[in-house]
């Protein structure tokens, strides 16, 4: 299990690096799909089959298809290297440092494992998630649904204007 986790994690990180390294948009998008699938595998290793499958269906299957679709439709070729933005240099480096430091602290604080045996993983079955969503978190769930509905309507209105 641990070996599989490290393989998936390494795959996710390498693919994530490849997303920003690639100059061809389609390759970047494909690498992002690999990242999402690797994350789904990590969910699977945690015993959350439902989350893993939903991750693949929604992110890798639906959202990324639209990305690839648009890239193909625009027939975007190679990215031409332009002047690097100055904002990235002055803001990016400190932010990345802060982010990495934060992760390092989080990992470090876990290092001598506090509990001898880790707590049992929460129930990841569809029934358990459904009960949680429709009992304890019904308000956030409904609010999110309305938000998405508004976004859909907005997208339709914006698309209609073109014609």
């Amino acid at each position: 299990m641990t070996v599989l986790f490290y393989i998936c994690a390494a795959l996710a990180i390498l693919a994530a690096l490849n997303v920003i390294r690639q100059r061809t948009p389609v390759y970047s998008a494909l690498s992002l799909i690999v990242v999402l699938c690797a994350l789904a595998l990590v969910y699977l290793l945690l015993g959350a089959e439902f989350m893993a499958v939903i991750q693949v269906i929604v992110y890798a299957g639906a959202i990324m298809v639209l990305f690839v679709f648009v890239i193909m439709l625009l027939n975007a070729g190679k990215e031409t290297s332009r002047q690097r933005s100055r904002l990235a240099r002055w803001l990016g480096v400190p932010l990345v440092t802060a982010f990495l430091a934060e992760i390092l602290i989080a990992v470090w604080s876990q290092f001598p494992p506090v509990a001898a045996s880790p707590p049992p993983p929460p129930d990841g079955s569809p029934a358990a998630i459904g009960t949680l969503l429709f009992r304890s978190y019904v308000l956030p769930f409904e609010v999110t649904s309305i938000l998405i509905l508004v976004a859909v309507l907005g997208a339709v209105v914006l698309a209609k204007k073109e014609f």
Partner: protein
Amino acid sequence: MGTFSETTVLLAVAAVKIAFVLVFLLTAIAYLTWLERKVVAHIQARWGPYLVGPHGLLQPVADGIKFIMKEDIVPLEADRVTYWLAPFLGFVLAFLSIAVIPFGGSFTFRGLRIQAQITDVNVGLLFVFAVTSLGVYSVALAGWSSNSKYPLFGALRSSAQMISYELSLGLAVVGVIMMAGTLSLRGIVDAQSGFWHIGRVNTWLPHWNIFAQPLGFFIYFTSAVAETNRVPFDLPEGETELVGGFHTEYSSMKFAMFFISEYANMVTVSCLATLLFFGGWHGPVFGPALLQVLLPVFWFCAKVFCFLFFYIWMRGTLPRFRYDQLMSFGWKFLLPLGLLNILLTSLAIAWHEAP
């Protein structure tokens, strides 16, 4: 058995099952192409393949040799990596979903309980949908990487069609999931054993979902045909307008891989239709122990075969849709119908379970 550890035995059983299913599936696909040519030929009052072997039965072998021997032409302007990736991706994904398809009950062999299924995932149905939703990339990448006009158009059409019909495909099975109360394919089939009862009267109708979900089945099968890009929804490869669709620039074995994955997808979709709506492997079972193990598998295969025949029958009968009609049919008819089916099913379940 005592000399081997439990893990070794489990792995060995899994390996045997995978090998058996793969060989069976590949042979079935090869003869599905033969069946299609034969049936379509007879529908059109022709003979079909007749020369290679008796009734052309060796034609799939000859076709296989032909595909291997042919020159593999890669377009000069093609994007090499994705051009290679696309057929392999489609091939792997097409065969991946068969891993969770149960094709029979379970039996005990030398104290070892064996299920007629490669692996029983408790979200099996969603797993199939996840794998199917990734299949779009194979088509999209094939069209894009060929760097040619018609494949690109074909791929755009194809992926738009697959994305659209995936929605109604997903909505159509929600009714079945609500009735079974599980996402496991084995669980869904188990919920369909026995007969329908009205009150206390046995109607002797098998307890299959088709009788409770006719609307769901109609939506499922229509979307499934569109999802697999078959007639009458085979717009992506409409020869008259797009040459050959997304695989125009592919030749030799790579083309064969697209071909095989299309047929594998047909088999998967027919398996799902059998499992979800036609009671899976349930059927009359009798006789000695061996027959009791084999008969369910036979019933399952027979039902799947009926669907595959129906696919071919439709190809020989129906004309092609127009592309805009296809899109509006999916979005404006099947999708609302799917939502209506969910509403009706939930009302019926609430009515049934009301105190």
